[in-house]
């Protein structure tokens, strides 16, 4: 069952979705298998043998009154990323499309605090929203068959980070050495819906040094703290 809050990408809708997810998780009715927050709705997977659709509808309706945006808090992350042209494969192209210089693209992308609206597509892959309008680019006409792991890419004023090599149609600006998915960790995903992310530009040399550390499982990123307020 899908609980829909709207049909836009909007931090306020997202916060309501996450607040409901949290409330449902806290008092999970028998029959609810799991809930998946997305940009604008909460997908509730349930077992129709344990609970009818009508009962689920009633249970969720009971959680809606008093749903508060403020009741939600995520974590704040600073994720190192290298915007060198050898890694940010589409940086020059994005600069051309947006009419900005490459340096301006890097500055605007890295300095904007972006919100993790949802995880999807691949294990540990975050959809980050909140980029300025210049980044409202359509996806690439020819999606890449192989996007390197750690690639930070933009489209539609959003960013994604590919946790592993994958096909992908977004414009690649940078690459992070930070692993976003660790099968043996609990939870295995570094980020979660509701977290805030900014990127910290790295030199190629720093990137390579951190990548070596990451390969030896010695790179461990910790959040800077809880999210601070909400952007209007």
């Amino acid at each position, binding site marked *: 069952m*899908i609980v829909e809050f709207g049909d836009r990408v909007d931090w306020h809708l997202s916060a309501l979705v996450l607040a409901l997810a949290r409330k449902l998780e806290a008092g999970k009715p028998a029959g609810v298998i*799991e809930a*998946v927050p997305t940009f604008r709705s909460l997908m509730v997977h349930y077992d129709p043998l344990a609970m009818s659709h*009508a009962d689920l509808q009633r249970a969720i309706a009971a959680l809606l009154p008093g749903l508060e945006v403020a009741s939600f808090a995520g974590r704040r992350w600073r994720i190192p990323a290298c915007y060198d042209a050898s890694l940010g494969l589409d940086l020059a192209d994005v600069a051309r499309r947006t009419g900005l210089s490459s340096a301006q693209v890097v500055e605007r992308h890295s300095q904007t605090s972006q919100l993790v609206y949802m*995880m999807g*597509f691949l294990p540990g892959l975050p959809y980050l929203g909140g980029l300025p309008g210049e980044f409202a680019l359509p996806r690439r006409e020819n999606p890449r068959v192989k996007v390197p792991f750690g690639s930070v890419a933009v489209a539609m004023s959003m960013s994604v980070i590919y946790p592993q090599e994958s096909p992908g149609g977004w414009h690649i600006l940078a690459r992070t050495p930070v692993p976003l998915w660790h*099968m043996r960790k609990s939870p295995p995903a570094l980020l979660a819906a509701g977290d805030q992310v900014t990127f910290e530009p790295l030199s190629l040399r720093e990137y390579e040094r951190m990548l070596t550390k990451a390969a030896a499982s010695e790179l461990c990123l910790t959040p800077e703290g809880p999210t601070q307020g909400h952007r209007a």
Partner: protein
Amino acid sequence: MTAALRVVVPGLMTTLQDLGRPGYQRLGVPVSGALDQMSLRAANLLVGNGAGVGALEIAYQGPTLSVEADSVRIAIAGGHAPIDILQPSGNRGRLAPFQSGRLVRGEVLRMGVLGGSAVAYLAVEGGFDIDPVLGSQSTLTRAAIGGFKGRALQAGDVLPLKQAAAIERDERILAPFDLTPRKHVRIVLGPQDDHFTPAGLKTLLTHTYTVSRATDRMGMRLEGPPLEHSSKGYDIVSDGIALGSIQVPGNGLPIILLADRQTTGGYAKIATVVSADIPTLGRLAPGASIAFEAVGIEVAEAAARRLARDVATMASRVASVRRPLDIDWKRLMAENLVSGVVSARESEG
């Protein structure tokens, strides 16, 4: 010596699957699991396993496996295929589907092309000794998660078994259940049926579609008349995806999302296949026909309850075969004669 099955020939797409990996979709982890969970349960039941023990999901073409254990009890359920048991001596017997059998060290199980269903499940008594990932042995090849090294089996793979030898007991047999696909697969319209014109909805409900060759464990792609999107278009702000969601991208051709489906998606979803009809989808091979019938939630829930009853009563339909199937090659051959299947080698002799 450790107990194992060695992969001699892997088959077309043989993966370890159980009932899936729910609970991590919020992190982007697909559920995966067997495409036809009825047949998985049957195979496990026949070897005395719990319903959710990981088994080999075999698609279209069976594997050849050699036994590197003192003995192992095996059962195959789902699509029927010739299952030859080859001995080092050159003798040959057959294992029937929906029946357990005991194989001993050095014997080779060779399974042919599947009929009646696109998938079959090979369960071993005690299960495979492979660590679960996030609570499941299911293989998600796209992300290299779970199963045997996160991928489909390859020649030379050695699959460790939990049990060194088969337990001494009678073999079991289950009357094969009806694998014939439903004439009409039942769907509940929505959540984005408003992204289609009335003509588009009518097309889905009145035309027969063909399962495309591009179908895989992630999604069943259908070929047929395209569905017309309304002015709202095919792009939506991404939302969650259910097992059986039918998404329709810009070309208007429906894709039914299956076990390895992505957790979220940005194409309009016209309907969802009812949970009771999911196993039937898993059994359809490319080229098969499929038509749809819209039903309400109550019908979908009643169908789910009926399927659950069928699953619950499966154990009561299992019968014991008094004499064990293994070693007694004379008897095996006699059985084959009865069913009209004779190995060329034996009839020559």
